[in-house]
């Protein structure tokens, strides 16, 4: 899975691409841990994710837990339809703050209304 990260002093936007499963899920965990460890909030732009399995869901929950432990916020945005369905199926959509696009997610975090 490819991953691109854009960050300023306050918020990092992660753009995972491909499969959020197996190695892709592990890569997301690692990247998110580093970003949160550097003291930034996280926006996860999931537009480029083509396939997600239970390991990918586990990585998302792990990211959320790590953020809480670091008193940081996490917001998801630009969810593909299949990932949105999977979050609804597992009721994880009630856990995450989910936005239509990156701009809304970043704004919410800056305003303190996400995560």
């Amino acid at each position, binding site marked *: 899975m490819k991953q691109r990260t854009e960050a300023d002093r306050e918020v990092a936007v992660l753009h995972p691409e491909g499969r959020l*499963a*197996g190695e892709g899920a592990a890569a997301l965990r690692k990247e998110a841990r580093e970003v949160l460890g550097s003291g930034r909030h996280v926006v996860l732009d999931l537009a480029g994710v083509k*396939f*997600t*399995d*239970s*390991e990918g*869901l*586990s990585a998302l*929950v*792990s990211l*959320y*837990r790590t953020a809480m432990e670091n008193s940081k916020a996490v917001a998801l945005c630009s969810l593909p*339809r*299949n990932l949105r*369905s*999977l979050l609804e*199926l*597992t*009721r*994880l959509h*009630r*856990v995450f703050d989910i936005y239509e696009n990156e701009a809304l997610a970043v704004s919410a975090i800056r305003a303190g209304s996400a995560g």
Partner: protein
Amino acid sequence: MGDHFEIAVPSRASHLGVVRAFFRALCEECPGFRLEEREVTEIQLVLQEACINVIRHAHAERPDLPMRIRITIDRGTIVLEVHDRGRGFDPDAVPEPEAAALQEGGYGVFIMKSTMDSVEAVHTGDGFVLRMTKLRVPARREVTSG
């Protein structure tokens, strides 16, 4: 009786793509397998979760052992069978994950049970079969007036 298709792959995560591609190829190449893209993705995910269970549990110590995936489809059902050499498990005994409690694991079996109409444990002489069945929505009949 429907048509049967079967593959066997080593029990390694690096081969999960082969299983997903196998199912997609059936959908694309076999006339009786026509499914909507949403259904293809859902069933690929179910197969992936069943195979992850084999890799993590039944064959965790012996990844060289093959897991066999058999797919049967007819007009009314899709049946997925994943064979392994393990002792098996009872899918009904696996509790639902608690998302609100930020549970990190346990979503795989829940996804299988939620997506398919039935998930059965079948113990065989040489291992275990997880048999998962999905009822297909009958093709809509064309309605003509007059």
